């Protein structure tokens, strides 16, 4: 469906050049909700904007349904863009138009007649649940409602692809979930392929079936969401997974740990982050047997993604003659994120 090969984008400005994309290769299949995750400045938006040529690639190829985007004439490009919807972090609605007018906008651009426009807008507003807001102006809507208008507008010309640039990053967690659910429904109902750019692993977890991790202008890892979650290969991917389970240790527990740290001559309180296959193994009991230490679970935070547990445990290890430390380095060696909790 979307085939990207050796895509490179260099920005040239007075202050020098920035290589925003460096040899990107991606294959996005029909019906995918394809996630692109990376830190701020990694090149995600640039990559997404190259797909509909809002940004002109410096080199490389982008094929959509077999059509080479970089070779299109301005007229052909305009036609092609009508089949590629796009939604934005800050919605980018026309403040001079009502909700109705905003959704009608792409249809006017495409030259539909009044009657068709009216029918389509009505259906679209129904689809996103905003029929009662047709006469409102964007300034009178909440963030979530604005993004629903953005989605209705993006779907107006029956696109084959929907590009989403941080579509939920300006929304609160609850609204984010409802928008993600709407996108998922649309993907299932209408079979629209989606490319979802985000810096939040939670978005990937909620709706994407495939994901590419982008770091410093390059794709460093890609695969199905399940693969990335269960066998993250790069530190970047691991960090994103970790960020999902930031385990804030409760205050009363902190006090307890402080007391423990004072009392323990040879013990450690550690925070263990674990994701993926490793969690299926009985690690703690293994360590207890192998090193003769005591393990006491103080706090836990576990989630389950597509059948695999993910989470954080706060564990107190006790052992004599450095056994606790050896147990910790063993845990690190087998691929867990182990961090000694220092409170003081």
């Amino acid at each position: 469906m979307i085939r990207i090969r050796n895509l490179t984008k260099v920005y040239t400005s007075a202050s020098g050049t920035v290589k925003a994309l460096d040899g990107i290769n991606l294959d996005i299949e029909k019906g995918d909700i394809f996630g692109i995750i990376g830190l701020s400045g990694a090149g995600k938006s640039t990559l997404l904007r190259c797909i509909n040529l809002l940004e002109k690639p410096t080199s490389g190829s982008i094929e959509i349904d077999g059509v080479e985007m970089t070779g299109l004439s301005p007229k052909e490009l305009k036609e092609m863009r009508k089949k590629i919807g796009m939604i934005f972090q800050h919605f980018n609605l026309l403040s001079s138009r009502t909700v109705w007018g905003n959704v009608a906008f792409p249809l006017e651009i495409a030259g539909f007649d009044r009657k068709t426009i009216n029918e389509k807008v009505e259906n679209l507003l129904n689809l996103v649940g905003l029929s009662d807001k047709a006469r409102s102006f964007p300034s009178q809507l909440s963030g979530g409602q604005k993004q629903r208008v953005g989605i209705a507008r993006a779907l107006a010309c029956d696109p084959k692809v929907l590009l989403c640039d941080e579509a939920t990053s300006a929304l609160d967690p609850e609204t984010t979930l409802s928008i993600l659910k709407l996108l998922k429904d649309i993907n299932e109902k209408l079979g629209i392929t989606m490319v979802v750019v985000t810096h939040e692993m939670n978005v990937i977890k909620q709706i994407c079936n495939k994901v590419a991790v982008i770091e410093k202008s390059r794709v460093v890892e890609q695969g199905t969401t399940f693969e990335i979650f269960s066998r993250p290969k790069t530190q970047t991917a691991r960090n994103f997974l970790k960020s999902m389970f930031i385990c804030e240790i409760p205050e009363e527990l902190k006090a307890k740990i402080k007391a423990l740290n004072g009392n323990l001559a040879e013990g450690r309180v550690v925070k263990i982050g674990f994701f993926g296959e490793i969690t299926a193994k009985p690690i703690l009991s293994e360590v207890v047997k192998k090193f003769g230490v005591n393990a006491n679970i103080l706090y836990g935070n576990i989630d389950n993604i597509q059948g695999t547990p993910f989470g954080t445990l706060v564990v107190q290890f006790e052992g004599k003659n450095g056994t606790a430390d050896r147990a910790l380095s063993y845990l690190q060696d087998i691929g867990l994120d182990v961090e000694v909790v220092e409170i003081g």
Partner: protein
Amino acid sequence: MAETVKLLFSATRETVYMVAVSVLIASIFGIPLGVLLYSTDRGRILENSPLNKALGTIVNIFRSIPFVILLIMLIPFTRWLVGKSIGTTAAIVPLSVAAIPFMGRLTETALREVDRGVIEAAQAMGASPFQVITKVLIPEALPSIAAGITITAINLVGYSAMAGVIGGGGLGDLAVRYGYQRFMLDIMLYTVAILVVMVQLIQVLGDLVVKYLSKHR
């Protein structure tokens, strides 16, 4: 007294006529000029550096010529265009020529305030540059453009006071001829009062239009 009223009335009519027609012409040419200045600028929808620089230079030249001098410099052009170089109608030519670049700059500034994201969204939907201008830029900037027309009209009231130099008549001319040259201070004061009221009216009316246009935004 009746004589004075008659004088004031016809002078007011002349000023209103000059200002109204000049505002109209300034808008008809100035707004498209502003669109061109904006859209040919670097990184804009019709980026064209040479054209942008040329237009910018011409606009700046016209804006730096003092109006009294422009009034005289344009006499041959006025004669060619309207067949005469003296009179109220003739004064409309230099007034418009002075107001067009001014309105152009104000429009350019108004368009620059339109969110880039909205323009980009339209382009992503396959809008042509022309569609972006007519369906996004101008509607989104309309309140600011209306405010620009108001400022231009008020400026033109001021400029029109100099129209007497080429026999244009109007309130300013009346004040100079009767108030200054014939020491009829009362006429001077009346004209000033009418000019103040006129400027106030334009401002209030302009503000109302701007407020109406930006309802809900």
